[in-house]
């Protein structure tokens, strides 16, 4: 969920695109968090592993090999399906999608065709319900590395099969999205859900999440669907937004100039910031799907599915709604995005710490550092700060050290002798020294340049880090008036 658009009124496509309405459906490929590949025991290769080092006879498609299902991938897919409120049919099976390409070692991809793992789900994005058509499992292909500047001029091509056989979940939405904003928010919400339930890291930059929007436009008020194009090569949420905006404008331009949109797959060029034709539907492959004879149909154990459903963590939308009762929407969104931060927040306030102060420390200090303190220690720290016993700067040091060493804030504060001085009589002498040492800033301030106070405040903090900034500020303004 993007804070900038969360809950905000939508731009009506009609306003932006004249009399056209944008219709977007999304195909999202997500790599579930598993140790091994979909159908063999190979470890999932880390990014940038040397080519073909994470392979075996199975994922290399050697003659005679057979697939064996990785149950961890099935579990991740089911969890995802349940989180998206999908139905889990009793019977599911794998199918072969047949096409030849050098990055596809067997000459077919094991995927799911007419009996996917799950169907008919939905997800709420910014107040809109987006229907999920299906979530199914398949295997990834390898990749080609071309020697040469352009594919059609490459003089040599190499195949790297490290990714071949890596599990993928494909999440297909209905065409329920109406703008680039919505499409991006949908993708971000999916990522949040996937991370929250532990199904995937869903990092787009690492290729763990690949988003392919299907885009068409139609006259406002029309219920039919226009000719669609599918976009590929999108590597970030920002690129997703730009690619859709570009493509929508292109569709409208084509249609308004009396032309017809060609149904095709188009690539997004990050360098040129435009889409380009990749594959026309006229030459579309006939994938000759048929049931994978090497894998018996799966009869999913209902008790297992119910157990997964029971153990599913609270969904981000529910978390956010609960947090929004105590916190501003933007803060609730930031904390609610992460399971760990939500837990930290809830357990810290359960120990009596103030919710606003706790939330602020989590958003401003804990989240950027990526290091999670124990709720006990955070609660203690927040209490020190609220009591005015230490300064914010000292608080940061205490937090960092506490996370590092596991020691309690009380121990750290005592050891460093951290305290906050709020007694004006004690600080007055420092205020006078600061003004003496910065005559220009002082005279600037007196002359009405109020920003000059910051020079003095900075010097104050350097001379007396333990000083209560509020008191210091008051003293300086008083002396200068």
């Amino acid at each position, binding site marked *: 969920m993007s804070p900038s658009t969360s809950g905000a009124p939508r731009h009506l496509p009609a306003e932006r695109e004249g009399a056209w309405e944008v219709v977007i459906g999304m195909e999202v490929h997500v790599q579930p968090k598993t140790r091994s590949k979909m159908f063999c025991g190979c470890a999932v290769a880390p990014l940038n592993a040397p080519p073909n080092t994470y392979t075996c006879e199975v994922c290399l498609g050697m003659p005679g*090999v057979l697939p064996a299902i990785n149950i961890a991938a099935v579990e991740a897919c089911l969890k995802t399906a349940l989180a998206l409120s999908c139905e889990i049919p009793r019977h599911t099976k794998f199918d072969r999608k047949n096409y030849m390409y050098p990055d596809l070692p067997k000459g077919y991809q094991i995927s799911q065709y007419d009996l996917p793992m799950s169907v008919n789900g939905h997800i709420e994005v910014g107040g809109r319900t987006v229907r999920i058509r299906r979530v199914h499992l398949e295997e990834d292909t390898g990749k080609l590395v071309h020697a040469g500047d352009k594919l059609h001029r490459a003089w040599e091509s190499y195949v790297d099969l490290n990714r071949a056989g890596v599990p993928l979940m494909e999440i297909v939405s209905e065409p329920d999205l109406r703008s680039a904003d919505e499409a991006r928010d949908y993708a971000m919400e999916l990522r949040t859900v996937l991370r929250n339930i532990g199904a995937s890291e869903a990092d787009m930059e690492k290729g763990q999440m690949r988003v392919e929007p299907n885009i068409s436009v139609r006259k406002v008020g029309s219920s039919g669907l226009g000719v669609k194009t599918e976009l590929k090569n999108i590597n970030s949420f920002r690129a997703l937004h730009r690619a859709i905006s570009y493509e929508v404008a292109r569709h409208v331009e084509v249609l308004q100039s009396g032309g017809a949109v060609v149904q095709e797959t188009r690539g997004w060029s990050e360098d040129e910031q435009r889409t380009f034709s990749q594959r026309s539907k006229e030459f579309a492959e006939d994938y000759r799907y048929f049931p994978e*004879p090497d894998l018996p149909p799966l009869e999913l154990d209902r008790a297992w599915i119910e157990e997964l459903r029971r153990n599913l963590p609270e969904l981000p939308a529910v978390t956010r709604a609960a947090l929004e009762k105590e916190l501003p929407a933007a803060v609730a969104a930031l904390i609610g995005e992460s399971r760990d931060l939500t837990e930290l927040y809830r357990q810290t306030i359960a120990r009596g710490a103030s919710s606003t102060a706790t939330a602020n420390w989590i958003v401003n200090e804990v989240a950027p550092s990526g290091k999670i303190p124990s709720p006990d220690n955070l609660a203690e720290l927040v209490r020190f700060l609220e009591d005015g016993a230490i300064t914010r700067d000292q608080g940061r040091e205490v937090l960092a050290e506490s996370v590092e060493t596991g020691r309690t804030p009380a121990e750290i504060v005592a050891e460093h002798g951290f305290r906050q001085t709020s007694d004006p009589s004690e600080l007055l002498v420092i205020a006078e020294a600061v003004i003496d040492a910065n005559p220009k800033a002082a005279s600037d301030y007196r002359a009405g340049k109020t920003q000059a106070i910051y020079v003095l405040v900075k010097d104050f903090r350097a001379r007396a880090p333990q000083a209560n900034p509020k008191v210091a500020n008051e003293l300086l303004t008083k002396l200068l008036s």
Partner: protein
Amino acid sequence: MTSDDLTRITVKEALRLLRLGTISSADLVTAHVERIERLDSKVKAYLRFTPELWEKQAAEADRKLRAGAGGPLAGIPMAVKDVLCVQGVETTAGSQILKGYRPPYTATAVQRLFEAGAVMIGVTNCDEFAMGSSTENSSYFPTRNPWDLARVPGGSSGGSAAAVAAGEAMIALGTDTGGSIRQPAALCGVVGMKPTYGRVSRYGLIAFASSLDQIGPFARSVDDAAVVLSVMSGLDALDSTSADRAPMEVLNSFDRGVKGMRLGLPREYYEVEGVEPGVKAAIDAALVVLQKEGAEIVDVSLPHSDYGLAAYYIIAPAECSSNLARFDGVKYGLSEVDARNITDLYMHTRRKGFGAEVRRRVMLGTYALSSGYYDAYYLKAQKVRTLIKRDFDEAFQKCDAIVSATSPTVAFPLGAKTQDPLAMYLNDVLTLGGNLAGLPGISVPCGTSDGLPVGLQVLGPQWGENVVLRVARAYEEASEIKPEVADVA
């Protein structure tokens, strides 16, 4: 006992002598190698030999036997069909497209036999990718029938059948997709068995049609075949279609005789079109023997048999068109790299690497799976398959096992059917029902017609290998027709 006599005995007898210390595995291997050197230039059962394996494995078996140990096949010379991967041993599925290919791993079934002490002699010839019924579709050379060198040994596992029949191996492995073990066993006068689908792991079997393929043994006695089968059987985590069944159950009461058993005689099989009178006569005689042993012959019907061939020739090519897509010249085997683009690489490699029958089936299967034809062909064929399964289920309500000829004909002359694929396909008409229904079946020698071997087929219900073996064994014992080693001339 002369060295050559060691090529005529059964596994059972050989094991007895090995355990007594009368002979060694090395002796057995030497006897077989000598016979191969004398005869195989005529029979041409083998594509290649594996001296590095037989030396190591025979020595290992002898060491264990001397220590009073050794598995159930310790020291037994074995031939392996060219579709089963053996690590480091050139394995080509009878095809030019895999020439020079050495698998990095060993098929589960072969591995289990190695662990039981079997000694690999070599790789046997077969129809390319196991597609054929005469071994004439091998891209290397045809194999000859040891009983009449002008005739075919059957196929596709013709090399394995001929090797066992000619005394060039004591046991051999084949694969059976539509009859490719049972039919050559019948034509070569040896025992050949196809297990229930899922009994033996297919891991390492270069797939022809995944839902039909099974690995099975050739031997010169039912007992020997039973031992080989039990060793290969059982769950394999690497094959999700393999079943968690106890390997030894195939031997349950298999030596009890047929007294009181009901043997079904499907009229559609008995009166099959093109059945030779001599074959029919041999089967009639076999039925009399079984009746004398106390079996009751009952009339059963498999009403959808007529559609079996058509369904088979949709399903098998459809699966093969997908299974063979990996042979693209990119990763292993033949690669016609002098190509302008990737499509050219595929086309040139596959045109040069695949023979006519393989190309025909890939095209048939691709067509059958195509958008717009899938329902009319593949889906319809699967429905027929369900009906055929039901036919068998109903028949097994009335009988314990089904008996018929294995092949409507005896071995035919080389070249007799190569120009007529449909005539060739009809060889499988009595066997492919067992594959479509996933049932166990055996072919056991039952006399001759015009001096050429005839096979009696016994089919059993799913997981009923012990029933099939029981009927075959009882017949073998009562008929006193023991599989013999052919005197190749």
